[in-house]
Each structure stands twice: as structure tokens, then as C-alpha cells.
């Protein structure tokens, strides 16, 4: 059809009928299925040469740790990265989608993406879904206009800050930032502060744990330090393994069923040529 040539905008908005149904079911006492939340401590700060982002690596499903080493710092553009807290599927999907849109924009303009572009694409999407997309993000990067750090809330509001924390461990991390942050930090001091803030979240918040991921973005260069710190190693693994000899387990009853021969193999004569 001729429509194929024009990229038409989607007809109508998001349909909230199922959300109404869910609310009604909740009132009647039907529990919704639990989904994997990232619990999380995510942080970002602006230092003298750019932006440093940090995140823990624990993904929770209610009281259970679903993933001990998940990646919460998502790629958006070569010069923009985004930490995600909230529902893991939502943060993944929304950052993938905006990353794709930024790539198309880069092809069309021939220029490096700006953080404000990523921010606006994210907040428009989240607002149009009225907070049902449970993604709380810390977006940071360096573009032609300089280093930028923003936070995005699930309902679509944003803040622009020199240092920011999000997630269940945000208060623990913010306590560290508020007491130790200064403008014009060096790279090493910045990384140390970010690690301290994430560790504060890891040790004081149940929803955060395991390792620390750090991402340093400067003009024209980025360093993704996956598992920069491992403050929670497993220490009680026996290298010899475990062997359980007969007699360890008590036998309560024994029943033996012999296999019956169902197939009879008959040696026949060779086939006639």
C-alpha cells in the first residue's frame, strides 16, 4: 500500500482498559503475578571531565534474589549511558527503544546524540503511559554542550542535577553524596565516591547487593567498568566438592520391579536376492 512510504504516527493513545481491570481485581483481593524488580541502588555524579554512573547488580523477585550479577547500566548512545531502577523488563525495553530511536536520529542528522534528546524521548514515552511503565532512570553523558546528568521518574518528570541517586537504596547512597560531594572532583576521587555510595546501598538496603558497576563518560571517550568492585565474594566453596557415600541416607523401603521383555528378537534367514 502507499502507506508504506509515509511513516504515519500511531493512531490513538495507549489503551488503559486492562489497567482498570487490574485495579478492579486487586480490590477483589486477586494478587497480581509478581515480576522481577531491580530493587537497586543507582547513582550518577558530574566530575571535572564528565559524568560517572554507578549501579549495584542485584535483581529481586519479591524476597528472592533473581539475578546476582545483572547489568543495570544500559547503553543508549556511544556518549550516553542510562542506569535503570524499577521493573527490570520496563527499564530494558524503554532504554532499548530509545537507543534505537537515537541511532536513527544520528543517521538522519549525521551528528552525535545529545543527552537532552534521550531525556525528552524517555520522558515523553513514560508520560504517555501514565506511570504504568515502572522505570526510574539515571541518565548521564557528555555531548557538544558539555556533561549532563538527569533523573527520570516513572510518571515522566525529570530533574537535572550535579549528583543523583535512585532506587530502594537511594537514601543510603544520597547520605554519602550529600556529605562528601564537591564540584570539580578528579576521575579517581569520583569513582571512589560512586563506589562508596553504591556500597552504602549494597550493605544497608535489602533490595541492593552483590557487585558494583561503574561507567565513566568523558568527551569522546567512555569506560564501562563492569564489576569494578566485588565486595561480596562467595567464600565457603569447597574446591574438593562433596561426596556422599552409601549409608548417609536412611533407606525407608525398597521395591524392585523387574523389566518385562516385550520385544522378541527372532534371528531370521537372509533375504532372497
Amino acid at each position, binding site marked *: 500500500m502507499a502507506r*508504506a*512510504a509515509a*511513516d504515519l504516527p500511531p493512531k490513538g493513545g495507549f489503551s488503559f482498559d486492562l489497567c482498570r481491570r487490574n485495579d478492579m481485581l486487586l480490590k477483589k483481593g486477586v494478587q497480581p503475578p509478581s515480576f522481577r524488580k531491580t530493587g537497586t541502588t543507582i547513582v550518577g555524579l558530574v566530575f571535572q571531565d564528565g559524568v560517572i554512573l554507578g549501579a549495584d547488580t542485584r535483581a529481586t523477585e519479591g524476597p528472592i534474589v533473581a539475578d546476582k550479577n545483572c547489568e543495570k547500566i544500559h547503553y543508549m548512545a556511544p556518549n550516553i549511558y542510562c542506569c535503570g531502577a524499577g521493573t527490570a523488563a520496563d527499564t530494558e525495553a524503554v532504554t532499548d527503544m530509545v537507543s534505537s530511536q537515537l541511532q*536513527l536520529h544520528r*543517521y*538522519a542528522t549525521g551528528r552525535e546524540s545529545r543527552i537532552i534528546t534521550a531525556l525528552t524521548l524517555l520522558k515523553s514515552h513514560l508520560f504517555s503511559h501514565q506511570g504504568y511503565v515502572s522505570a526510574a532512570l539515571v541518565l548521564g553523558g557528555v555531548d557538544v554542550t558539555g556533561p549532563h546528568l538527569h533523573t527520570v521518574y516513572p510518571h515522566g518528570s525529570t530533574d537535572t542535577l550535579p549528583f543523583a541517586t535512585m532506587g530502594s537504596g537511594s537514601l543510603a547512597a544520597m547520605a554519602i553524596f550529600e556529605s562528601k560531594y564537591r564540584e570539580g572532583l578528579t576521575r579517581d576521587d569520583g569513582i571512589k565516591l560512586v563506589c562508596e555510595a553504591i556500597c552504602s546501598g549494597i550493605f544497608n538496603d535489602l533490595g541492593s547487593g552483590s557487585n558494583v558497576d561503574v561507567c565513566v563518560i568523558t568527551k569522546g571517550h567512555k569506560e564501562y567498568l563492569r564489576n569494578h568492585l566485588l565486595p561480596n565474594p562467595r567464600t565457603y566453596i569447597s574446591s574438593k566438592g562433596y561426596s556422599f557415600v552409601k549409608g548417609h541416607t536412611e533407606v525407608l523401603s525398597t521395591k524392585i520391579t523387574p523389566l518385562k521383555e516385550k520385544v522378541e528378537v527372532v534371528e531370521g534367514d537372509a533375504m532372497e536376492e
Partner: protein
Amino acid sequence: MGDSQYSFSLTTFSPSGKLVQIEHALMAVGSGQTSLGIKAANGVVIATEKKLPSVLVDETSVQKIQLMTTNIGVVYSGMGPDSRVLVRKSRKQAQQYYRLYKEPIPVTQLVRENAAVMQEFTQSGGVRPFGVSLLVAGYDDNGPQLYQVDPSGSYFSWKASAMGKNVSNAKTFLEKRYTDDMELEDAVHTAILTLKEGFEGQISGKNIEIGIIGADRKFRILTPAEIDDYLAEVE
């Protein structure tokens, strides 16, 4: 010509079994500026003439060779605006493919999708075929590849090909000069010489465009300064 009675409607076959509108679309391509592509052992090069209608046009604002993905580039012969629509659609299709399969789109898949779009416009009501042929150059896990896509929607893989005004001379020249074990640098020189063959006027970095992709899988459009360097080497 008995066919002329059937030439006004795209969706009607002529008695000789041709779709005359597609033939006409190929004529539009044949009167466009020459472009060519050469597949080397370790990369692909595509090039085109960039003849502007007047000396007053700012040549830095015109870019005929475009990127479809980071490792696939395209050049056209024919109507520029038609190629813009196709490139835009391909870019979107490549992103959608990546979102679905988390794999960068292979060159053959992108060419196939492109060809499907072009074919759609030969079998629908109220539309006309695209007046461009595309040369798609890419490097993926199957190595360097060069494809030509025609207004009818058919596509071919080439070792070296040319399209546009000077196509027969250019193809003869390429047939003589092409070797299977050519390196990318040699291919660029051959491409320049082929363009020079039918070039009216003084060839320079400002009136041709060259795009290359090597084993690094990053499609790159050469700057006019780099093209001038290659031209100097060729002299």
C-alpha cells in the same frame, strides 16, 4: 509500438509480457549519474559522480552516499528523492531487526527487505515504481558483499558493477580490470579510473564521492581531501 497502449497503467502487463512502467523506470536510472561498486578481497568500495546543476550549489551540503547501518552503505543512480525514502525505510528496518533478534542485520536481509519495498510499489494502486537503482555495500560475518537492487525489486550480488549514464563503458572497463584477489586500495584506484573514463570536465575530490568499508566493518565516506590524495596517486 503495440506496447504503448499498455504503458499508462503500472499494474497491467503488455502483450509481450513486460510491465512497461518498470522499463521506463530503468530508463530513468539509465539517465542518472554514473555510480559503481567493486568488491575487493578485504572490503568493498562504492563511488559516484557528483555533478551539481550549477557552480553556485554548495557541494558540502550534497551527500549521495549514505549509511544504512554502521557496516552497510548505499549509493544510487537515478532520482535522489526516491533513494532518500528507501534509505530512511531501510534504516528503520535495520533497527527493528536488531530490536527483534539482537543481531546486526546481515547485508542479504537488508537488501531483501529493500527489494520487497521496491516490488510493493510495482504491484499497488496509485503509486509509481522507484526511479532508482541502489548499490548496497556491506561487510558482515559472510565477508564483503556488493548488491544491486533494481526498480522492479530484483537484486543481484556483484563482484563489480556500474549503473547510470556510462554503464556499458564502465562495465567493460571493470571486466578488464577486475581480479578476484584485489585489495581495497587497488579497488579504490580502479573505481576512480573507471569514473574518470566517462567523466566530462576535471575530476576532483569535490565532484565525486567514494565510500569504503574494510575488515573493521565501519562504513566510511571519504573526505574530499582524501579523494584528492587518491587522485594524485592515480595520476
